[in-house]
């Protein structure tokens, strides 16, 4: 009897079961490491991404094959975005009284994010296409991706850049806020939601429900403001 090793492998990498199981396993490992080390550097999402990348490289597996399962997981991002209404509902009594700082914070955050993205990328030698790719990175991934396509950037690279910015905020954000003396949970949430969308918001939720609620609202508002400002600022700058 001979084992059908090749056929089994072909079936395995093409099956959604592979991508889903791999993602959940990597995430579980990431959470375990995060709990054991209690270090913010071991963000579960970062550990999981590195582990999956290694598996794909070693097994010579296409990203598209992985996505057959990965897409089932990413699908829930939409429902999770809807779910952000819950912290907002719980903290509404605080949010209602801070609408002006929220609005100003979001607009300032968007203007600084977009203009510095264009300027710094240019300064570091990036061409126009790369600058445009960077411009919408503060908005949540579906929005930054669509904006990038609209203004002539590279949408998939924008999505990657957006996620890297979010992961950076999740790892370093709270530490930086401590260093620069911003301890008000509401201000912390506004800063995270305005510049680090959903990934930052999930870190903010770990810190406190108040911080998470402000971050969730600012993430939504930043999506709106960025959609309006990116096409305008790109023409001027």
């Amino acid at each position, binding site marked *: 009897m001979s084992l059908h090793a090749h056929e089994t492998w072909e079936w395995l990498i093409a099956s959604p079961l592979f991508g889903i199981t791999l*993602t959940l396993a990597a*995430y579980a490992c990431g959470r375990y490491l995060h709990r054991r080390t209690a270090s913010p550097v071991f963000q*579960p*999402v970062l550990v*999981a*991404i590195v582990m*999956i990348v290694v598996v794909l490289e070693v097994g010579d597996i296409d*990203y598209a094959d*992985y996505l057959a399962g*990965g*897409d089932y*997981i*990413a699908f829930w991002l*939409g*429902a999770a*975005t*809807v779910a*952000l*209404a*819950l*912290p*907002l*509902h719980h903290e*509404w009594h605080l949010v209602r009284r801070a609408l*002006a700082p*929220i609005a*100003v*914070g979001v607009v*300032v*955050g968007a203007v600084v*994010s977009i203009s*510095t*993205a264009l300027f*710094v*990328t*240019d300064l*570091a030698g990036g061409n126009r296409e790369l*600058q445009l790719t*960077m411009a919408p990175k*503060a908005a949540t*991934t579906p*929005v930054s991706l*669509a904006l990038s396509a*609209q203004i002539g950037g590279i949408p*998939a690279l924008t*999505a*990657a850049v957006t996620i*890297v910015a979010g992961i*950076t905020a999740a790892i370093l954000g709270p530490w930086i806020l401590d260093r*620069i003396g*911003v301890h*008000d949970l509401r201000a912390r949430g*506004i*800063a995270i939601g*305005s*510049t680090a969308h959903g*990934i930052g918001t*999930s870190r903010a*939720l770990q810190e406190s429900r108040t911080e998470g609620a402000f971050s969730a609202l600012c993430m939504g508002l930043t999506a709106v403001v960025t*959609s309006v400002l990116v096409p305008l600022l790109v023409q001027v700058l």
Partner: protein
Amino acid sequence: MANPPVLRGILALLGCQLAGEVLVRLTGIEFPGAVVGMLLFFVVLRLRRPGDSSGLVAAPKLLLTHLHLLFIPAGVGIVVYLGRIRDDALPLAAGIWVSWLAGFVVTAWVAALLLRLGKDRG
């Protein structure tokens, strides 16, 4: 362990998302349907005011606890761009981190200042 009625909550979340997605397409507004869904679900929560044992609370809580998990597949997508990232490593790194830091710090300071001013006035 008591089984919270998560199913009803999941249905509410997907229902709000579906309504949001349909709404943005019908009106032709270029905006993520899920964010519109968030606003709709917020209205549902304000009107129903569900208790902690309700599925309307349990389902979103479950998703938000594992929010990070949902970003992993897209993060892995960075692999596809490894070649590109190597070529333009400096402008990409500078563009992401310098720009993110600037936006983050300025927003935090502006928000903290305005919140403090608001308290002094009130």
